[in-house]
């Protein structure tokens, strides 16, 4: 029996990625990373800034996402996100810009703890990208 399932990543403008031969996807859910295999129970969660890793038979792909919602049902993983890019075509300028804007946001006084946590995390992830 095959252990493959489908993944659909859509952003508001288009369908970003659609594959039917993945065997594992790791998503940065808001309460920690989740690895999803075939026949996972139905789940809805949302994302924090991080890397989605998609493992298919032939290759491994990584995408940076800022936020979004994931739904897994009937062996189809749907990821809805408004900001996503493939790590392979990561734009150095864009990454460093995002880091500095996030840091600027962090230096403001009126943000709550949850936001601070998310922003800190975002900076961390973005920095790890620019090192690679």
């Amino acid at each position, binding site marked *: 029996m095959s252990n493959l399932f489908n993944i*659909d990543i859509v952003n*508001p*403008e288009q*369908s970003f990625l659609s594959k039917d031969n993945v065997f594992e996807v790791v998503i940065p859910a808001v309460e920690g990373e989740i690895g999803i295999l075939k026949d996972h129970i139905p789940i*809805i*969660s949302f994302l924090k800034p991080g890397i989605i890793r998609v493992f298919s038979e032939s290759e491994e792909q990584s995408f940076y996402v800022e936020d979004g919602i994931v739904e897994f049902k009937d062996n189809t993983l749907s990821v*809805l996100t408004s900001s996503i890019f493939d790590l392979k075509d990561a734009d150095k300028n864009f990454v460093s810009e995002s880091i500095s804007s996030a840091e600027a946001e962090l230096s403001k006084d009126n943000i709550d703890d949850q936001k601070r946590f998310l922003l800190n995390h975002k900076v961390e992830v973005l920095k790890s990208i620019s090192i690679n």
Partner: protein
Amino acid sequence: MPSLDDLRKRITSVKSTQKITKAMKMVAAAKLRKAQENAEKGRPYSEKMNNVILNLSKSITDKENAPKLLVGTGEEKVHLCIVLTADRGLCGGFNTNIIKKAKSYFEKIISENKTLKIITVGSKGYDQLKRQYKSYIVENISFKESKNINYFDADKVGKIIIEKFEKNEFDVCAIFYNKFKNVITQIPQEQQIVPLNEDKEVSGNDNDYEFEPDEDEILSNLLPKNISTQIFKAMLENSASEQGSRMTAMDNATRNAGELVDRLTIEYNRSRQAAITKELIEIISGAESL
């Protein structure tokens, strides 16, 4: 009767107008294809979003504490209307149709003694509404600078709505836009986005989801996004409708100009012939009198 020279001038002017409308039609046709493609590409996102929200709201048992964006504030006093129109004219009844639909809604609200607030997106809507409803318009947004419809713009509108909602500035929010059916038909739509209408009950789909974190938190994270998504969808539909409407309008204009040129040419030829005949008669009768 206009002189030959006047007729000739009119024919040239109508011909050059025809050239412009023809060019506009072709530009609109090219843009329409792109806009339609974009609208189709954007559909899966909003559909999936709807599905997730539907599943979530079904699993919420405690209606009392559910997020206000979903169930409303419990009152219906202040209505916020988002009127989405184009930034440019010359597109037939496109803008007027949305305005007409919106106006009938406004009248209803006012006659029920409720408070009305209007946000116009797109300059044409503002131009048409400011005469009559100036005092109700709270904001006027235009995305003239952005060449393409993008999610970023829709998100800006969404954020304004959320901000106003959090400040308790309105109870009910509705958006007005044109739904693209086909090139000739665009249907003006009125859609309520706050509180969310739950008329689409899907039965027999009781999947038990696992939620992480809990339903409430996901919903309160998701609902603001849904508003932006709905606005984005409306903007996409609108841009396809605008191009479709412009294409039809310009096609008609080109045809009318063609008819006008034909008529003017006949008139021109007739009066030229009349002048020649008159001259001939003068010459002949002059020769005869000798």
